[in-house]
């Protein structure tokens, strides 16, 4: 299988770096830790958090990207969440939304249920799956330096782009954003569209 580089990146730091200069980015987060990571940076009106619907984050990003072709859409989700809807990568690659970026925070664990190992701990490579699905711009990030290079990919390179960031399984404190679905939906749309 080859020797995997040591995983050193901390998920909170990674998300903070990615969102530091987010501009008018629209962000969709997958359930669990990615939602809390984004909230820890600061709740934002351009964030839509999924609190459930496991397997749906990337596709929610696709629908949003198609509806808002002039905005940049970033999906931040976990490896377990992505695996549950992994066929969606093929759907996204066929649609080729140029404004969609997908970021996996891959700790190789199911964090919400007791840190059980996911398939990525056992030889399954999500960025290669994305490239098998036909997504041309894929990469994997292990180091700070690689992260630095990856951040412009999320914001500037032609989508769909898929970046798998390996992060440690060190748990971060829960930081909970609003979870009322209608509220999340309405504030996101009102800000974006000027109406609900």
């Amino acid at each position, binding site marked *: 299988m080859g020797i995997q580089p040591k995983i050193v990146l901390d998920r909170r730091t990674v998300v903070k770096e990615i969102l530091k200069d987010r501009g008018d980015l629209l962000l969709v987060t997958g359930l669990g830790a990615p939602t809390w990571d984004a909230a820890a940076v600061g709740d934002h009106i351009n964030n839509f958090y999924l609190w459930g619907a496991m397997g749906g984050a990337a596709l929610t990003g696709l629908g949003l990207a198609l509806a808002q072709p002039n905005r940049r859409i970033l999906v931040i989700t976990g490896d377990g969440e992505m*695996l549950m809807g*992994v066929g969606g990568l093929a759907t996204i690659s*066929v649609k080729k939304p140029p404004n969609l970026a997908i970021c996996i925070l891959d700790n190789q664990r199911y964090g919400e249920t007791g840190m059980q190992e996911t398939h990525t701990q056992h030889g*399954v490579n*999500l960025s*290669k799956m994305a490239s*098998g*699905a*036909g997504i041309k711009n894929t990469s994997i990030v292990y180091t700070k330096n690689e992260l630095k290079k990856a951040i412009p990919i999320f914001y500037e390179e032609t989508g769909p782009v898929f970046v798998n960031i390996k992060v440690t399984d060190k748990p971060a404190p829960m930081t909970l954003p609003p979870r009322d679905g209608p509220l999340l939906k309405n504030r996101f749309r009102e800000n974006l569209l000027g109406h609900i």
Partner: protein
Amino acid sequence: MTQKLKFSLQRRQVVHQILENRGDAAVVTGIGNAVHDVASANDDPKNMYLAGVMGGACMVAFGIALAQPDRRIIVITGDGELLAGIGSLATIGVEQPENLFIIVIDNQAYGATGNQHTHTGRGVDLVGIAKASNFKNTALITNEKELQAQIPNIYQKPGPYFAVIKVVSKSSPRINAPKDGTYVSRRFRSAVAGEDA
């Protein structure tokens, strides 16, 4: 953007060739054409035809493979069926069942529903996904020579194995395969696990 590649292999002949000397191997088929391809080779009791669910063939075969470790289990399915349950490849790639062999007959269209293009005709590389899912033994078969070279891998080497066979986008006549699920499932179980199971 849609690839207009010409392939020459005929799906039915391909399946017949693969199953010609199947020995005691058990076969699980996906929905649609795969049922007829396999049934037309021989309506063997060790065939489980999944005539009506999408995305389940690989995992049904995986369950059989665990229960029947000394027998080779072959999946014959289509690209659309496989895609509907593509996460299964990751699950199987982690579990590494040595007796499971997955063969995708890829005509790059949903044959059952009017031949709309599937994703494989538009840049999706199933072999690449299988490799990324930790399958060590994979093949892309596009002609007769490659087919002949790969058939021994299905019967002589350890799995898990994954192959995509590109065939001409044409349906073959339907065969009256038994479609009663209670019948095919019990016939299969008796043949594979014995009357007492």
